[in-house]
């Protein structure tokens, strides 16, 4: 069956089976392989994408459910070239090692900080506790998020 939605600002129309997850659709039909799959049962958060502004686990959502939605993946968060302030902060604070959890961390934090640019450390920690990282111990990820808040605050101010 056909499903139409928007990915990273681009209208797409994909032929999917009823049981295909949004994660598989993004990765294998649309070739957006930045979204990773670490468990397929909703625990690890590696597959997190932004659907209509909310961070969503794309392994728990069917592609057909994305009908009409606006979906943003890590590729959509990235600039043509260079790094966004959030990505820069991850690099500066060594918020990634193997990089496998990173796209999910970035999408989750982008959704959070876009809504709540003043989020406290505790709030950030709490939200990120739904995303597993086996490499970093999380501490540098939290530091990166704290550091990136300024850019989101400024973006809000600019609006």
């Amino acid at each position, binding site marked *: 069956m056909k499903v139409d939605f928007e990915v990273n600002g681009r209208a797409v129309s994909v032929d999917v089976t009823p049981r295909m997850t949004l994660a598989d659709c993004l990765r294998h039909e649309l070739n957006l392989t930045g979204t*990773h799959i670490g468990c397929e049962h909703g625990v690890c958060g590696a597959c997190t994408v932004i659907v209509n502004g909310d961070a969503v686990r794309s392994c728990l959502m069917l592609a057909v459910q994305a009908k009409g939605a606006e979906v943003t993946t890590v590729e959509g968060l*990235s600039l043509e070239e260079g790094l966004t302030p959030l990505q820069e902060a991850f690099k*500066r604070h060594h918020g990634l090692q193997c990089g496998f959890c990173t796209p999910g961390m970035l999408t989750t934090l982008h959704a959070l900080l876009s809504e709540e640019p003043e989020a406290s450390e505790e709030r950030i920690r709490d939200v990120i506790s739904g995303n*597993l990282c086996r490499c*970093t*111990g999380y*501490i540098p990820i939290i530091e990166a998020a704290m550091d990136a808040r300024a850019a989101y605050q400024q973006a809000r101010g600019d609006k």
Partner: protein
Amino acid sequence: MKSSTHPQNTYIGGHVERVEDYRFLRGEGQYLDDISRPGQWHAAFLRSSLAHGTIRKIDASAALAMPGVHAVMTAADIEGNIPTIPFRRPNPTIGPYAQPIIAREKVRYFGEPIAMVLADTAELAEDALQHVVVEIDALPAVIERVHAMSDAVLIFEDTKTNIPTVFNAEKGDIEAAFAGAHYVIRDQFATQRQTALPMETRGLLAEWDAQLGQLTVSGAAKLPFFNRTTMANMMNLPEEAVDYIELDVGGGFGARGEFYPEDYLLALGARKFNRPIKWIEDRREHLMAIGHSREASCDVELAFSKEGVILGMRGDLYINIGAYVRPNGMTPVRNAAQFMSGPYRIPAIDLDAHAFVSNKTPAGTYRGPGRYEGCFFIERLMDQAAGALGIDRLELRRRNLLTHEEMPYPLATVLPSDGRAETQCDSGDHREPFETVVKESNWAEKAHLQGQLIDGRYHGMAIGSFIEGGASGPQENVRMQLEADGIVSLYAGSSAIGQGLETVLAQIAADYLELPMERIRVFHGSTTYLKQGWGSYGSRATVMGGNAVIDAAKKLLGEFRLHAAKRLGLAPEELTITEGVARAADGRSVPLVEVAKDGINVDGFFKNQTPTYTYGSAFAHVAVDPGTGHIEILDYVVADDVGRIINSMTLHGQVMGAAVQGFGSVFSEELVYNDEGQLLVGSLADYLIPLATDYPVVRCISLENYPSPTNPLGAKGAGEGGIIPVGGVVANAVANALSSLGVQPKILPLSPSRVWELIEDARARA
């Protein structure tokens, strides 16, 4: 003449941001599941649902009839003997315990591969698994130590015992040590079965080129060259006909990249059907199929003099290695025996480490193999001994920690030899990180909190120490090539598993070539780059690869000198080389890029059979809630001396990440089996690794007071140390917190329910 190879040292030791981050942060990393080939088939594995049994029948006809299903391969598709997985560190007695790459008559663990289904998509292959009929007659499952070691049920009917090897670690006169002891402590401890759990599950893509007779395996990690040799032998191909390609890897921690049964089956399928075959493990499968580790117990004693000086250590260690001896399944066993003495001066040692088989998933290594277990055992003994001897816990350690004057310090000799019977700590003074931690933790100011009940929680503290082996030999190779645009391409045999290898090798190359890092491009891990290489295991990539880079850099500059001299019509010695330019006394000069067209290509290598020993200490401050058994880590400080810091940022990342993994080991991660040998842990909701909210405080301090004398860089391995002391230090802090109740934790994990029970039992006794 000015030395042309003296490093400027502008990158080494710095806080250098990683070059690999750019692609990872933009979602442009390339992990195995990100690649696909036209016409590829997908594999799914049918795995034993019983822990132990005899296979009666396999009927795949219904599965084969399904649309999109192309083949079901079983043991019947393999002519003659079923090949077994080779050992990386063989010893004389383990031969009969090797794992056949697919089960034929018998299954010996829950999850053992029985059949491989090949279909158009992964979903279809998985669907088809449900339609393969397998009949297995159950045999009694052997799960725990006493049953296994009784040999009442032999897991390998052609052997006489379930104990493939007993390693003995020996040193000094043990009888005399115990005969002369003022005090002896003896106790039993145990650590639970765990796994490394990288966030990316395993996977491989096998491709066969029928015209060239060439097999390409993508998804290599850790040991691309060893695995290539293994695969070539098993497939009856010359080594050059097999390539292992390394992509980005979502974590390894010792478990990923060993040769697994699936590797061979996928290659076999690719050749048989002349199709690319891809397989991605799902998480449930991962938990039952990837190497397990850490299931160890012991009964050991330590002898002390009146002054608290350790005189000797003896006893038995028991390691449940699961159903088969896997390539490095014996590493944790022999390590536990050799490294249990850790940072302490122990003149007499006699430890027997018994490896026994059981009907559980075969074991391999997980970060700090055998060392984490041994450290837990000895640190628990040390704290209990301090209490009995009436000596302050820190003071007892000061009297026994190794000093600089004693280096190199020989550890116990381990037999049967697996190639590394004898070893010695190479350099260092173990008192220095210890005192650093005492100071940084503010021990003196916090000492009064020990055992206190504050706001309903008991507070406790502890400091423990560890050693970490690194720089596993024998050799590492790199190749450097000067490209037309003046960039230096560096091809390394070391493989990347998320540890920032590209950055670290580029830093070293840049410093020794005196070039900006942007002019170095690192390629690694694939067998296509080099004729020979080794990989990343045993904390070796930086030391072995890094020193090979130095060798190559020197050779490249040597070539540059020759070619530049020829251009200027001078003798090579007449030139001075700095920062990529060769200069003559008369003011003429040749930049590096100019000689690029001469085709400059050099090989560098570093040979070293002598391991390095990083060492350090860690502090934990805990608060224990007696009502729930929940433990909070209020502060954690770890200091280690790594000989030479290459990149302080990635080093801290390794230590911190390892420490937090260690908290998972201590508190929550456990691969639980029932009596029938069924693994009860099937998802990340059951296997509880640390979350962002769990352990917000870890402080790391890195020292470089004692460079390793074994290599020109002076570096030591550093990826594993952070995890080694966590069990012992945290358990001691918990014992300290609950000292008024007399609670002594002896079994990990310290889950809330176990801690609560310990407290309730202690109260009932009182």
